[in-house]
Each structure stands twice: as C-alpha cells, then as structure tokens.
C-alpha cells in the first residue's frame, strides 16, 4: 500500500519518511544517553546486590549483604556508623539549603534594586563564583580559615578554639564551604523572580500597616516560592552527594555519604558496597524531592 503524501510545514512528504528522518536525527543522541547513562544506572542497581571478591573485583552472587552493611550489620555486630553518616548527609544538605535560601533573599533584592547601568556588573559578580571550579573555591577557604587570619583569631579570642589552630577541619567549615558553593544556585533563580515581582502588592501591604513578616509572608513569598523550589532542587541534589567540601574542610570526623562512596572506589575498592551506597543516596534524594513536590502541590490545592 502506498502512503499519501502530506504537506508538513510547507514540505510535501510521506509521514513515514518524516518519522524516519526524525528518528535518524534523534537516534545518536538518545542511544548515547541510553547507553552511557541509563544502562550504567541500571548496572549500578544490579552490582549493588553483588559481592566484592578477594581481588577487589565483582563476585556475581546475589546477596543482600551490602544492604545489611548499609544499615550497620557486619561481621562484628551492629554499629551506627553508616546510618550516622547518612543522617548527617541529609542534615548538612538540608541546613545548607535552608541557609542558602534565607541568604539569597537579601542578595536577590539587592541585585534587583541596582540601577540598570550597574546591573550587568553585579550579575557578573554573582556568575563568576558560579562558574569557578569547585575545587578551587573550596580549598580557598583553607587560606581564609588558617590560624593567622581574622576568623580563627576571632574564634580564639572568644575561646571557641585554642589559639593558633585553624578553623578546619570542623563542621562549621563544612557549612561555610557548602553555603558558599551553593549560594549562587539559589540566588540566581530567586533574582529572576524578584525582578518580576509585583511591587504594588508589597506597597499595598505596607500601606495597610502590615509589618515586615506579614508583608513577606503574604506579598513576597507567594510570588517567589516557585523560584525557591527550583533553588532547592538545584542545591539539595548536589549537596546530598557532595564530597569535595567535606573532604577538604571536614576531614574524616565529619564524613558524608559522598566521601563514603568515594572511599569504596578509591582505597577500599569495594564496588558493590559503593554501588549500594549510591543507590541509597539516589533513593534518599528522590524521596526528598518528592516530599518537597508533594508539599508544594498540597499548598497549591489548599489555595485554590
């Protein structure tokens, strides 16, 4: 049976030819992503049920040992180490994300209120750290937090640390590093939202003698919360698996799951356990994102 030709955007073709051409165009890209991303993710899931053999390779026997180890059961009984690391990762990611959101508001309002001729410069100032390599941005804090510099001296003066010691490795250093790395990820989308803000609502709120909090809650928050949601996604996902910052600023005492995963592929050479850790990280990340999404949806429904 011969197909009838149709006119598609001015072109006289047979539908089948149109689809065939489209397929030829999209196939390389789709196959690339399927082969080098979807399939590897699948193999990650499979390998997490395998075992490490004596040479650091993979022993293909099906087992739940890695999952048991993940929640703390090993040859010597139960320990909370891995669960503590998991919990700490979630906590650090959540707190850093929250800090970034709170701090992004003044930043976004500041940027939006700059006169037009300076705006490009301020935007560039926010973009440069955004594009600077994470390794450089993180190790730079090693200089600032060194014992000779004001932050460490200040802390020593108030007897928070011993004089002559650096402020790293510590949990505070990890939070500072995380906050500095992710601030632009929240500030940029938030700035876009503040730029489009309907200021008449803010003025109306102040005219009606609403205080700062009520104005924020009822005039600003509803207009910016979708930008905050985007910022949360952009920050929370990478923050959960972050290993450069805790590795450089936190040391072994403040390990996060990212460091634990890296260890399995470096010194420990236990790929199956590393795979199951990654799987756990993926599940936690997805669960957190779904939690935020469902909350956002619930909010929307309550409003309508």
């Amino acid at each position, binding site marked *: 049976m011969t197909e009838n030709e149709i006119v598609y*955007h*001015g*072109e006289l073709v047979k*539908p089948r030819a*149109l*689809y065939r*051409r*489209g397929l*030829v*165009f*999209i*196939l*390389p*890209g*789709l196959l*690339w992503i399927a082969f*080098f*991303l*979807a399939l590897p993710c699948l*193999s*990650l899931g499979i*390998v997490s049920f395998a075992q490490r053999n004596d040479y650091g*390779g*993979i022993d293909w026997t099906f087992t739940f040992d890695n999952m048991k180890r993940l929640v703390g059961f090993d040859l010597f009984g139960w320990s909370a180490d891995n669960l503590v690391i998991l919990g700490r990762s979630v906590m650090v990611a959540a707190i850093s994300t929250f800090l970034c959101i709170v*701090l992004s508001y*003044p*930043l976004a*309002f*500041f940027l939006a*209120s700059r006169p037009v001729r300076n705006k490009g410069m301020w935007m*560039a*100032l*926010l*973009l*440069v*750290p955004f*594009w*600077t*390599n*994470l*390794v*450089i*941005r993180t*190790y730079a804090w090693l*200089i*600032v937090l060194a014992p*000779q510099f004001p932050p460490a001296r200040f802390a020593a003066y108030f007897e928070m640390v011993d004089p002559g010691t650096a402020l790293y490795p510590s949990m505070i250093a990890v939070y500072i590093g995380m906050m*500095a790395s992710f*601030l*632009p990820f929240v500030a940029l989308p938030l700035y876009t939202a503040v730029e489009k803000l309907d*200021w008449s609502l803010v003025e109306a709120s102040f005219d009606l003698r609403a205080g700062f909090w009520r104005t924020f809650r009822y005039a600003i928050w509803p207009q910016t919360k979708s930008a905050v949601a985007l910022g949360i996604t952009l920050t929370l*996902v990478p923050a959960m*698996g972050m*290993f*450069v910052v805790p590795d450089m600023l936190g040391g072994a005492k403040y390990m996060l799951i990212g460091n634990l*995963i*890296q260890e399995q*592929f470096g010194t420990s050479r236990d790929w199956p356990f590393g*795979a199951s850790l990654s799987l756990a990280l*993926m599940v936690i990340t997805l669960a957190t994102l779904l939690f935020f999404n469902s909350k956002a949806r619930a909010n929307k429904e309550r409003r309508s």
Partner: protein
Amino acid sequence: MKHTHPLINLTAVLLFMVLYIPLLCVVLFSFNASRLGMQWGGFTLHWYVDLFHDGMVLRAAMNTIILAVSSTLISTVVGTVLAVGLQTAPWGKKARRFFEPLINLPVVTPDIIFAVALVIAFGVIRSLTGLFELGMPTMIVGHVTFQIAFVTLAVRNRLEAIGNEYSEAAFDLYASFGYSFRTVILPLLLPGILAGAMLAFTLSLDDFIISFFTAGPKSMTLPIFIYASVHRGVTPEIHALSTLVMVFTILVVVLLRRSEKHNEQTEAKS
C-alpha cells in the same frame, strides 16, 4: 523606583565578600614570595614562571584542554542533531513522554551517582571485552553524556525562536529538506549552536567529580591535579595555577555572555 532597606544592602555586600575573599586570597598568595606559611614575603612572579617549567602541570593543562575540546565537539554535533530531530518531526505525545525524561536524565542525576554508575559500567564492559580502560576516552564519554542535554536545550530554544516560517518559505520555493537545512536553517541556528558549545565547554572545564572518577593514571586534569596537591599541602604554585584557571574561566564566561547578548540583538533586529 523601589528601594531596599540598608540592612538588606549590607547583608548582600557581606555575602559578596564571603564569595570573593577566599578567591582574592588565592590570587594574592600566588604573588607571595615566601613559600611557607601565610606570611607576606614580598611580590613575585616566580611561581607563575615555575608553573611553565613543571611538566606535570603542563600535561594536566593539555589534558584539560583536549578533554574539553573533544567532548564539546562531539556533544555539540550529537546535541544539535538531536534538537533538530526533536523539533522538526511531528512526534506524538506518547513518543515525547518517552524522549523527554531520557534527555533530561543527565541534568537531574547527581554528579557522584552518574560518575559511580559510569565507573561500574566501564568496569563490567572491561572485564568482558577488555575495552574501556579508564583514561582519556572514558573521561570524554562521561563529559559528552552530561553536555548533550545542555547543548540540546540551547539549540531547541533557538529553533523555537526561529519558528517555521523560514523553512516553509524554502519548501514553497521547491527546496529539498537537505538544501533548506543547509542554506536556511543552519545559518540561522549557528548562534544557538555556538552558545550551546560554549556552555558545554565551560561545563567540561568546571567538572571535577566525573573526571575524578573516570580518569586513568595518565589522564590527570588540572582540577584533579589541584585537588591532589592540596591534600599534600597548599603551595604558592597551586595558588598561581588556580589563579590562571580562574582567569581563563572568566574569559570564557565573558565570551559566552557576549554571544548571548549578540543573539538577543540579532533577534531583536529580525
């Protein structure tokens, strides 16, 4: 005109300082003559000169450029073709529901999971066939995979901005698909392709995690070199190297912004 509270401005300026003071410290100490400690020992360019005599640094710089250029070339071609295919064929809803998540997968997968998944997949293939020894080729594969999504995004935006009128006109004048694509669509699309390529290039320069996991013993890049050196102790050479990397990144970003602006202007004219 809206005004912001002085307290808001103060916080914002403080935050900018938090973002910049560490970076400025790196730049400052790259010119410091005293090698050890944080004392200022006078101005010198010594460490920069040293860098250009350090074989390892030069090799790492070479690797970084090779990796960025080759992965950008591959991902630009594959991503552009993908965007054109998605935009010019009448894909139904069902097909799109299958394509779109697959294309967006690299954007939403956390770096470390993607890196680990690649290492495991390469390991499995290697144990079966002996191919995919970790090194430059595996790093290129890793970079291309996350770049494709961003190139496709940039090119699709441009395709949407161009609209269908130009190609319709070409077909009305009896141009074949190939001829209209080459002479009408491609020249119009070029700024979008360029923007996508530059974005891909910066992403590659910026990446540490995927390179770190998929690198072999001979394919060290600058971020990996800096990371490894910091673990052995921070030296002025590393500050000098980081300063150069920062300057290079800023140059690329400025170029990217320029081309974006240029795009907007040409769009406004047409």
